[in-house]
């Protein structure tokens, strides 16, 4: 028997234990290893999910444990799907998701493309660009609130400098038209570096010889970009979209800090509304139904998207 760590461990195993293990099938040993994980998964994920589904058909309120719980059938689901305010929250969420992902991918990819070139101070610029994503969303929300302040805010002065408008003539956080864009701008500022890093990893994974072969074939830079760079980086871009989509669907802290979900309900995203229903109004049954609807929506969309991502990877 060679002196490997495995053999040493085997010989160090007490005979009684070894006998017991030898008596178990491979399948049983496999269950012993995966059992705790499955148990935890059931306890932490599956059971709460089933419990939430159960609660979604009731009028349960977590702040009234002594109140009789009644099954109300599909009433919670009907109320949610017929509530025009919730559809407005959905629209606000869709607006936020679409435009943040659009700008982050566009700017993130452009930055990655530029940073990927070799130039002096490359590392320094990379560090500076990724700084925003290292900050706490609460901190970012607070200081952008000052930047957006109509009388003293730097943002308004910069816009005024370029447009000739009075700095206090527009309110980024107070205007119904501008507030949705104000949160898009801040989220883009904060998370574009994340997309840039993923794109950078993608760009650096493209072997140089492919470009060299294209040079030999006299392919133009533009042609190389569209036929080599874009197709090879697409899986990375799609991954970035998936990550940012999931993150932004549950966006809460940044928006609450920035706009307090206003003006009116203009920036009340679904996650904010859900938290309000569950933990401020304490409509637990109703909020459970709301959570299930959101879960099914995200799960459905993510499944379709992951399938598309796998197809792109296979190409």
């Amino acid at each position, binding site marked *: 028997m060679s002196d490997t760590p495995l053999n040493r461990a085997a010989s160090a195993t007490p005979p009684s234990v070894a006998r017991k293990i030898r008596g178990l099938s491979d399948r049983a040993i496999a269950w012993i290893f995966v059992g705790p994980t499955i148990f935890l998964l059931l306890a932490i994920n599956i059971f709460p999910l089933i419990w939430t589904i159960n609660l979604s058909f009731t009028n349960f309120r*977590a702040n009234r444990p002594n109140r009789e719980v009644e099954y109300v059938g599909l009433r919670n689901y009907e109320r949610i799907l017929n509530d025009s305010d919730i559809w407005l929250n959905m629209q606000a969420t869709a607006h936020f998701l679409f435009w943040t992902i659009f700008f982050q991918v566009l700017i993130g990819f452009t930055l990655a493309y530029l940073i990927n070139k070799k130039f002096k101070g490359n590392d320094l610029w990379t560090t500076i660009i990724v700084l925003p994503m290292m900050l706490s969303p609460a901190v970012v929300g607070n200081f952008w609130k000052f930047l957006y*302040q*109509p009388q003293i805010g730097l943002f308004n002065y910069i816009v005024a400098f370029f447009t000739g408008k009075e700095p206090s003539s527009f309110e980024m956080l*107070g205007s*119904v038209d501008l507030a949705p864009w104000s949160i898009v701008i801040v989220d883009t500022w904060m998370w574009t570096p994340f997309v840039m890093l993923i794109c950078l990893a993608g760009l650096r994974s493209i072997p140089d010889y492919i470009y060299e072969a294209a040079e030999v074939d006299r392919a133009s830079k533009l042609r190389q970009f569209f036929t080599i760079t874009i197709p090879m980086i697409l899986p990375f871009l799609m991954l970035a979209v998936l990550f940012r989509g999931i993150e932004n669907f549950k966006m809460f802290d940044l928006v609450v800090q920035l706009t*307090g979900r206003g003006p*009116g*309900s203009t920036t009340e995203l679904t996650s904010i509304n859900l938290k309000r229903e569950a933990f401020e109004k304490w*409509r637990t049954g109703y909020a459970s139904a709301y959570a299930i609807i959101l879960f099914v929506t995200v799960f459905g969309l993510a499944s379709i998207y992951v399938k598309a991502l796998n197809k792109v990877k296979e190409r």
Partner: protein
Amino acid sequence: MKTFKLASASAIALAAASFAGSAQAEELTLCWAAWDPANALVELSKEFEAQSGHTMSFEFIPWPNFADRMLNELNSGGKLCDLLIGDSQWIGGGAENGHYVKLNDFFDAEGISMSDFADATVYAYSTWPKGSENYYALPAMGDANGWFYRKDWFARDDIRAAFLEATGRELGEPQTQKEMLEIAQFFQGREIDGQTVYGAAIFTERGSEGITMGVTSALYPWGFKYENTPGSYDMEGAVNSAEAVEALEFYKEFYETATPPGYTNSYMGESLDAFKSGQVAMAMNWFAFFPGLYADPNTGGDKIDFFVNPPQNQAGSTLGGQGISVVAYSDKQDAALEYIKWFAQPDVQQKWWDLGGYSAHKAVLESPDFVDSAPFAGDFLEAMGAVQDFWQEPAYAELLLAMQKRIHDYVVADQGTAQEALDKLIEDWTETFEDEGKL
């Protein structure tokens, strides 16, 4: 031997005494909002510590998170707080959900009479159901929404002359809501000492209770009612009456024409900041802040004065303030009750007022010196004579959030009409009361 026996007896007696002391002395935690009066209460409570042997610790939560944090604490049966100075609107939930200890037997045993406290405060802070004689709190801090203004600006000849020319009347404390708007509009965008100033700071906050507390300061003077008949939950024609619609339109006009730019999500802190930075001529805020404002070295003293929320169709002020309750989940209820007994004494209540707290004890309020004891004392008395409070139902949080949304959507986000906002509010509240089984 005799000496040994004596020493032993002394040691045993000393040990017994110290044991007895440590068995009785408790560390009580009092929970409240983090604001000026809380600091005064810390100072006041030192006397209780010295007298009782108990030690006091305090958990003060910033206002925007106060309700959220404390209601979660109560709902989860938490033992963080032995004593809670909770908002008046929590009394229904506190009583019905068993969070607060009912104090009737304790009051009877200790000879504490609720008739010693101002009637409006007993009704608002202590009783549930409303108007009954079931007491769940002792009135701790009387409060209402009032106004303060730049007395030095109002006294300047150039400004007075400009105001007279613009409006045809003398500049002074407003006697009606509409006069107040006129004054605020006069100051809006005016240059004073080379600085652009604005009319007034009002409440527009969306997340907790801000805009509701602000708008009710207009609704109540117009004659707003929550129900046609108290206790009936019959809201149609009361909540959305013609007067209520007019008051809501008035508040929107106030927000649009007489507040600083970017004033879209502002509550107590922002109102104080706007005033102290010399940005506004007037501001609304709770009387609780007035001692601190008067003491401010830059904008207090001779530069400030105070007035009660002006009437329109009738007098009306939004009620603030809180009662002090014993939390039912506390293991130290006896010591907590001792604190309430101590706090209810007239001399302690007088010190409470002297330190900057707003006593609700008649011995303080009806004292001949009271009105002259502070520049805002008379206004406080006047305000407390015409206060109205929000729903105090167990479902108060749900009712409040609905109003926050409907009012902010209309006033700040400019969506729909005042009539639509109030109609939708009735729909929301009806749904809540149906869920509660009250409709």
